[in-house]
């Protein structure tokens, strides 16, 4: 049975042609796709079906909870409206993400190469880690105003710690024997960084990117709640005050869709760049 073989081999394993045996019949791939995708589809159908059924059957008023059908109808009614606001939020999250990436990588390089910097910066990072960062949204809005700046800063603050900690672990995850081999031919610190530390840190940084994609969106949306003129967070807080639950939910669904697409894109990049990695970060 082709199914038995699939159970013992993991994706990416190489099988010598002689051992692989006859290829499974043509319908094999279809069965595999159905097997991998079907449980997810069923789970989604049950979730939304149950939601829809519950709302209709129990006659919950639309001011309290809307049915999925109403949410999709809302999205269908004004897709451009949600898309353009999603674009605003996406840009804020993106720039915040980029700022956090740059600052955390720089800080991690300093910490990895200098004990003094390690001792100076680590307490600050711990401080960031224990701060409920989303609580900074109101003061940030007061300080930085209506524009995209407070949202960018918020997205950056939320994503900084995961990036920083992963970058440090990654830069330090080098194999001592490989390090010694590099030293035996007098490789400079710069070269050891570029040839050893950077590639070794990639699995960690990409795992952090996956987590931070969602976090950056959350940061931007929360900042938009407090003082904004556009963005999905703005829509949610405005619609909430007008008691338009279907609009609130449509904005949330747009956010979910955005997150799924972005995380999917990161996953594709992960698989492309990390073919060499023995342990797939997703399968552990």
């Amino acid at each position: 049975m082709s199914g038995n073989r699939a159970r013992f081999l993991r994706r990416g394993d190489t099988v010598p042609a002689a051992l692989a045996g006859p290829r499974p019949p043509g319908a094999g791939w279809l069965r595999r796709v159905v097997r991998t995708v079907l449980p997810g589809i069923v789970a989604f159908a049950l979730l939304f079906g149950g939601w829809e059924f519950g709302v209709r059957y129990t006659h919950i008023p639309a001011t309290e909870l809307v049915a999925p059908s109403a949410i999709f109808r809302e999205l269908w009614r004004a897709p451009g409206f949600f898309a353009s606001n999603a674009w605003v939020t996406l840009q804020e999250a993106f720039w915040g993400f980029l700022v956090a990436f740059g600052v955390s990588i720089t800080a991690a390089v300093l910490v990895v190469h200098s004990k003094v910097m390690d001792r100076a910066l680590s307490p600050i990072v711990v401080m960031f880690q224990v701060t409920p960062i989303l609580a900074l949204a109101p003061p940030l809005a007061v300080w930085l105003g209506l524009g995209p700046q407070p949202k960018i800063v918020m997205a950056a603050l939320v994503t900084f710690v995961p990036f920083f900690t992963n970058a440090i672990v990654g830069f330090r995850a080098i194999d001592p024997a490989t390090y010694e081999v590099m030293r035996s031919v007098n490789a400079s610190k710069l070269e050891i960084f570029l040839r050893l530390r950077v590639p070794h840190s990639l699995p960690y940084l990409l795992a952090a990117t996956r987590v931070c994609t969602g976090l950056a969106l959350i940061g931007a949306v929360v900042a938009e709640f407090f003082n904004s003129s556009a963005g999905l967070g703005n829509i949610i807080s405005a619609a909430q005050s007008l008691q338009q639950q279907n609009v609130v939910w449509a904005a949330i669904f747009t956010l979910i869709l955005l997150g799924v697409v972005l995380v999917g894109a990161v996953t594709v990049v992960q698989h492309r760049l990390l073919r060499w990695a023995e342990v797939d970060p997703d399968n552990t």
Partner: protein
Amino acid sequence: MTPRRIHRAVADETRASSPPAGPAGAGIVLDHVNKHFFHNGTAIIALANVSLSVAVGEFVSVIGPSGCGKSTLLRIIGGLLAPDGGRVRIGDATPAEARAAKRFGFVPQTPALLPWRSVAGNVTLLRDVGRLPWRRQAGSGPEASGDAASDPMALLAQVGLGSFARSLPRELSGGMQQRVSLVRAFALGSPILLMDEPFAALDEITRDAMRYQLLDIWGQTHKTVVFVTHSIPEAVILSDRVVTMAARPGRVASVEEITLARPRTEDMEDSEEFSFHAHHVRTALRASWEGREP
């Protein structure tokens, strides 16, 4: 078969006082080398007055119990550790200068391959070091060592990995990975090879085969080799001389000259001469283990 004499180079009885006159004297000379480490606040003497010389083109194995300082010795020769006292010369240079000139091919116990580089990419790694893409200088390094004996592809083919040049390390077995590590050191084209128990992590059968693969690629160039090992047969079949070390403090206990003809073959492992040398090394090792002279 005439009995061979065992050289003793304990403490003051230094062999370095009469270093062999190799070409331009470019061998390895250690003269009363000392090294200690601190462990939990107490000093541990890793090497006490170690004197040893290795001639150009000579294959010398260093064998001894754990903690006798043989790995430390290798790292001092390679300029990866600085001695506390004594003198180390690599030809007319210090170890640090020799290291900067890429004169050492280092083979660690684990393959230590870069998992994201193909086999071919790993083999050329050490040549590439010192030549970042934006500072490529003409005529430095690899062109100088671009002779046939250090051609990476030819070497890979010679150890039976010619068709794996584009594979990733994770697709190879442990023995294959260690062969890549060997080829990497040879492909550097350096005159000296430092090997730190390179076959220790392999199973016994693979290990037996690896000896002859090493001898095979070494035979073309006759580089100077310092080979650290735990295995007596391995030391005897590979080496011109076997240096036995004793522990606490780390010191040279005895030196056995191996008179087996070259090229060495697997049949020699069954010969009387081989058993004779192995017996001597084993006796010296046992004595060093028990803390007395053979």
